[in-house]
């Protein structure tokens, strides 16, 4: 039994894996949706997963406006890609921007009205792994049953 998508993060996962969208297919080919995690990528024993992977977190959420179609919220979504190779990580970063920037998406109870690229940076951690951080501002609506 499949359950309806009711959260923004679940909608992003579905969008990433959507085989009907060419930009999502390109992104999925570089980094599969199985490597996308909401939260952090920590194993049961407290160690972190092997690279590459991507985490998704909502940094802020606030009510944008109320209409007769429902309540729209605005927030900041942060993708963090970890990769041992800089060029490959940059390619994934670009694919994420191509897939989500200035786009809209609708699935089940979630409507993403707009996602706009805000900010990004790349840093190399002490063990040599690269972290690519990409921020998007998002306006979305969740239909309440």
């Amino acid at each position: 039994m499949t359950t309806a998508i009711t959260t923004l993060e679940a909608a992003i996962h579905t969008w990433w894996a959507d085989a009907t969208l060419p930009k999502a297919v390109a992104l999925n080919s570089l980094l599969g949706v199985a490597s996308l995690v909401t939260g952090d990528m920590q194993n049961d024993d407290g160690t972190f997963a092997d690279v590459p992977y991507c985490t998704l977190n909502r940094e802020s959420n606030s009510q944008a406006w109320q209409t007769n179609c429902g309540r729209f919220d605005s927030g900041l979504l942060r993708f963090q890609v970890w990769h041992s190779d800089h060029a490959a990580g940059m390619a994934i970063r670009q694919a994420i921007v191509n897939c989500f920037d200035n786009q809209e998406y609708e699935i089940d109870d979630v409507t993403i009205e707009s996602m706009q690229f805000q900010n990004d940076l790349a840093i190399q951690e002490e063990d040599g792994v690269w972290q690519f951080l990409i921020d998007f501002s998002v306006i979305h609506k969740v239909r309440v049953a």
Partner: protein
Amino acid sequence: MAAVLTWRGDKFNQQLRSATTVGLQRATVFYHQHCRMAVSKPNSGQRVKVRRKTKGGNKRSRTIYPNPSKPGEPPRLRTGFGQRHILVEFDKSVPAGRVGIAQNAIYMFYLEVGTRRIRRRPWLLATLMKFQEQIGRLAATGGKGEIGT
């Protein structure tokens, strides 16, 4: 009948720019202060007795920090080095302000975004989001006293 039109636009533009600059400056300082306050919760060290051999001889005690921050909370204060190196900068010519950390306290940035081994302890963006309304209001109205002077 003649009408006299006096143009005060230049003076008003100057006052408006001055008001904007003052407002932005106040908002930047406000944000900087609250960033420092966000990382001010202490994780004070405690000396505990140990017995171990080191190159310098037998060590009898060491310092532990028993109250670290939990993931998702702002980092807690040990020595204050990170807190002291949260810096503020304001450029009146633009005008623009920014709050950030010094290069030698780069670990505060790693705590903000997290690394593969350290879970995030957001303090910079979280403080901005928490006080977004006040910062916006200060930026918009903080310099209103400059208008009409």
